[in-house]
């Protein structure tokens, strides 16, 4: 009996607090080392990367393109753990509460409100982007897309990885003229009842759709300049809610419910249950068409006042057990080769964060010749209509206001 109690107690100790007595983190000085020293320290180590795993094309890029090359060129083993950002952020928060100095994550893939959140809670490593050779050579460190993440200053605590823009998708066999603005969209929805809907604003994509609408109703300039100002917006956004209430009876299931996630909307679109789809990646339809999920006639379009774009980033948690490995891996992901492979339309198709003018000629040519596919809009159309993201506080504001104004009310 005594033995059992004793072993229980030991087990409890192991569970709760042994890590408190650990030696202080060894990673402190890594940030001050030379790059060659960092590379040497990284060799033969394992880097654990936590990232959203909901897109097969992203996963395949990481597992089949990045991981073998990282192993071959730097001797670094990449272990990818698929997990939603809020969940691994929670894990990190729990580690911080338990005072754990040796964590489990080396790289996390985040942006927007998640970044704001971890930055505010001091869960990230010290600034590191200036250490990365590829960042210094190829990234435009003055661009707003790089130094701000949804309006939050990046302060070198996360390295840009890719850029995406919000576009709408339609099946050109069923929709002849896609709407060019929200007025035309409302008209189209009323003429084709049940064929349009948007995801629940708790979903990333559903929220982006409403932010796009908010831009149109309140004005881009105002939202960027004013920062978070709910009283100003709540007044001007009345039109937005009445717009949504107006189209609600003509939505999928008469607006009584909304898809829980983009995955569900994709599924409905692929089965022809809805005819218009959307997504925060201008090129994502291409791979899905090739895989036979989306109809071959899928094309994309944007609506006034433009197309919201954002940058997504890679960061290192404060308690990463392998900082050197993380730095080497992030630097590799920022190399022109890795960025070009990421743009491959048959794979992920994610846009590069590198500055085209800073690239060597051969990469410049490759980039110019890259065909992103028939479902992707022309680069200049995308660039000319790019809208920045505004402060992430609106994400919550939209969720809550939408629920009381639109989601909760019955027709």
């Amino acid at each position: 009996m005594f033995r059992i109690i004793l072993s229980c107690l030991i087990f409890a100790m192991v569970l709760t607090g042994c890590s408190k007595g650990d030696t202080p983190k060894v990673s402190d000085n890594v940030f001050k080392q030379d790059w060659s020293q960092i590379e040497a320290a990284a060799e033969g180590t394992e880097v654990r990367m936590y990232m959203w795993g909901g897109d097969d094309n992203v996963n395949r890029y990481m597992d089949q393109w990045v991981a073998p090359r990282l192993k071959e060129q730097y001797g670094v083993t990449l272990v990818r753990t698929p997990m939603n950002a809020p969940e691994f952020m929670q894990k990190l928060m729990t580690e911080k509460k338990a005072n754990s100095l040796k964590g489990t994550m080396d790289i996390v893939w985040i942006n927007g409100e998640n970044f704001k959140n971890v930055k505010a809670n001091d869960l990230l490593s010290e600034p590191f982007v200036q250490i990365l050779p590829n960042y210094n050579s190829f990234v435009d460190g003055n661009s707003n897309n790089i130094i701000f993440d949804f309006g939050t200053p990046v302060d070198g605590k996360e390295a840009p990885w890719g850029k995406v823009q919000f576009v709408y998708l339609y099946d050109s066999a069923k929709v002849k003229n896609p709407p060019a603005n929200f007025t035309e969209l409302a008209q189209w929805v009323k003429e084709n009842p049940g064929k349009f809907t948007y995801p629940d604003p708790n979903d990333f994509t559903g929220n982006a759709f409403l932010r796009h609408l908010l831009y149109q109703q309140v004005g881009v300039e105002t939202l960027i300049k004013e920062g978070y100002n709910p009283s100003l917006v709540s007044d001007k956004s009345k039109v937005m809610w009445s717009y949504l209430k107006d189209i609600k009876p003509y939505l999928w299931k008469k607006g009584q419910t909304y898809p829980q996630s983009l995955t569900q909307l994709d599924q409905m679109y692929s089965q022809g249950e809805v005819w218009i789809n959307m997504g925060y990646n201008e090129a994502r339809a291409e791979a899905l068409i090739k895989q036979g999920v989306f109809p071959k006639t899928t094309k994309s379009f944007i609506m006034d006042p433009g197309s919201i774009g954002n940058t997504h980033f890679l960061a290192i948690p404060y308690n990463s057990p392998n900082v050197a490995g993380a730095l080497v891996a992030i630097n590799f992901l920022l190399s022109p080769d890795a960025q070009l492979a990421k743009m491959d339309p048959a794979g992920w198709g994610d846009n590069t964060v590198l500055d085209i003018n800073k690239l060597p000629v051969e990469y410049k040519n490759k980039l110019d010749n890259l065909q992103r596919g028939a479902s992707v809009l022309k680069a200049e159309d995308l660039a000319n209509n790019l809208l920045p993201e505004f402060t992430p506080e609106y994400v919550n504001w939209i969720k809550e206001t939408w629920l009381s104004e639109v989601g909760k009310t019955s027709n």
Partner: protein
Amino acid sequence: MKLVKPQTKAYSLILRYLLFLLMFIGYGVFELFSQSFEDAHDQALGSLGNYELLFSNQYFWDSLLTSINITFSSTIISIVLGVVLARLIYFYLHQSKWKYLIWIPMLIPHFVAGHLILLFFSQSGLISRAFYNLRWINHMSQFPGVVNDPWGIGIILTYIWKEVPFVVLMVLPAYYRQNKQYIDVVRTLGGSKWQVFKMVEWPALYPIVIETALILWAFVITAYEIPYLLGVTYPKMLSVLAYQWFYQGDWSSRPIAMALFSVLTVFILMITFGCFRLTQSGRFRSMRGR
């Protein structure tokens, strides 16, 4: 002479179990309650503000009502169907090997079951498609929406499909345990089938039925995956709402999510206690043979 008295041995066995319970479940519940009193911003303890916020939140009440409706419907229907099926098996399929087929749904995870319901019953699902091809409906959207519907029919259907075999599994042994001679007694005295059920079967089944219902009830009211998959945007079932609050971007709604779970925990404990009292007296009665 034995070194350890049997009574001491029994206590030590219980103690082991209690230790395990305290360490894993007790600690979790303790954290849950303490976090439900924390302030969202400075994490200071000792305020009831989260509970005030929770009880003044209309979404919470709507969710609670929906959850209770869906939970009671699926529990009661599962129990009734399960008892009827167990009875059929006991009286008519006693010898048949086919009776094992009924347990197939138990092998399938809930999440998969939810997807199956979606696959068959959604408006672009297999049944809708079949109706359309048979020209019974002109548009696939004419098929009644039984998944993602405001009444939770899809959720209830999934739970019935999954839980009826469970009920049979729990109830069948009680049927086999009962004294068959009582049935003959009632029969010879001219009792109907219903009277056999009421006087012989039900007293034997009663405690186990209550117990099973309790398990189902507690399971369904806190379940996440099926309501997430088949539920509606508003009102969401309690766990979906709590999850949403818990993971809301800036973490400010976390303490309210904890308060919600605390309320739910107390609620379940109360119902469990009530059921415990009921079955205890029931067992006592059936022991005396009344």
